[in-house]
């Protein structure tokens, strides 16, 4: 069975690139796309994806709040925060609401490997080893 992704980002360009990166793997498919947190939660409820790739800074509710609402619905579905603002503090807040990993948008290269590891480990609560996460400005 293919792994179904829900991708959430307010930028059309980022969603398109994500789609391209994720669909390079024939076992992965995009089951839904949302451009803001509230509609993402609705889609999450309806589609029950296997994994969510979630932007942090979006109009309306931010990624942390979106993930918190998703965790109330189905905490077992892993959520990856995909952001320009990766930092130790953001990661701490992210982990508190059940986000499995924080990935820097501009160093997205390790993301695919991290997602593979996350899917293989099933329900494990791991954080990625993305090199940018502790990198402030």
């Amino acid at each position, binding site marked *: 069975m293919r792994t179904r992704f829900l991708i959430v980002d307010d930028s059309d360009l980022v969603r398109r690139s994500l789609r391209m990166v994720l669909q390079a793997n024939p076992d992965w498919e995009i089951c839904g796309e949302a451009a803001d947190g509230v509609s993402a939660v609705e889609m999450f409820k309806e589609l029950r994806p296997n994994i969510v790739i979630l932007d942090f800074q979006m109009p309306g509710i931010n990624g942390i709040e979106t993930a918190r609402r998703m965790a109330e619905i189905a905490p077992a579905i892993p959520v990856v925060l995909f952001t*320009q603002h990766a930092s130790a503090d953001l990661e701490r*807040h992210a982990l508190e609401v059940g986000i499995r990993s924080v990935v820097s948008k501009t160093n997205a290269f390790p993301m695919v490997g991290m997602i593979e590891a996350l899917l293989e480990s099933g329900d494990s609560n791991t954080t990625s080893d993305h090199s940018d996460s502790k990198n402030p400005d």
Partner: protein
Amino acid sequence: MAEHQKVNILMVDDQPGKLVTYEAILNELDENLIQARSGKEALDHLLKTNVAVVLMDVSMPELDGFELADMIRQHPRFQNTAIIFISAVHLTDIDRLKAYQRGAVDYIAVPIVPELLRAKVRVFADLHRKTYQLEMLNRDLRTLSARLITTQDEERRRIARDLHDSVGPLLAALSMNNGLVHQQAEKLGPQAVEALRQNSELIEQLSKQTRTISHLLHPPLLDEIGLLPAIRMFAEGFGERSNVKVTVELSPEIGRLPPTMEISIFRIVQECLTNVYRHSESKTALIRISPTRDKSLTVQVSDEGKGIPLDSRVSTLVGNSHGVGLSGMRERVRELGGTLDIQSNGNGTTVTASLPVGNMAVVSA
């Protein structure tokens, strides 16, 4: 400003005839002349109107001039009210001294020289008018300055947001595209692989620089998850860029504050650290934010540098960056109803802002 705004002149005497005389003398000043026949009546007028000059007899039944002056001076509202005593008796130096100690600006003996009395009253009426105009201008200036700070904050937030929304996605897409090509690197020649590797580095540099600019303009975490993470993130980045070792001590019980307060506290800390880097030559800095028992918040930034020269601390309008930075901080603190204290000597500087927060500050973090 040039127009003659009439001020009130209160004349107090228990003898109606004298009041008529004063009125005749002062009429040509074109001010509002108010008569009172007793100390009590004078007080009634004072409570109702803003009075520039009080002209009063020393000897009156019940409440005499000295007692009345005492009562007037006790009230902060009458700080700018000039009191002129007129007396036919009580003319010793001790009496005069007694009058000046009660805040009188002059003591005139009877018989009165009309031109002299008129000239004296005119001076104080003009002074009162100018003081009032200055106060109004000062108030306008403060309003303007507060608006300027708010506008600057909003503008910075907007530019940071624009940068995030426009350049950010482009960089992210570039990075992901590059990653895709990287996955098929075996199909490329060695030069292309090297160019690809360099591209990745360039994207990384570009994104880091964009992020630094955007974060200095307006920290994204401030709006999204609050002041403390934003300060920690800024301090980390600042430490890396400046080689100043920054220690951060933030009371975890401080929760979300009103947005204007969060941005102001952030800017104060940011300004202090900039000063540490530019002027202090200190290798360390300490940021401490903690609530106090009296429902205020203490924001403190200290360093172990060479201190701020006194003229930079005192004058807020000198043309150096210290002066401008400090005056900006003062304005922010004043807007929030707090106080700013700067202690500085050859061993370092400590800037402390105390901000009233009521019950807001301590909620779940």
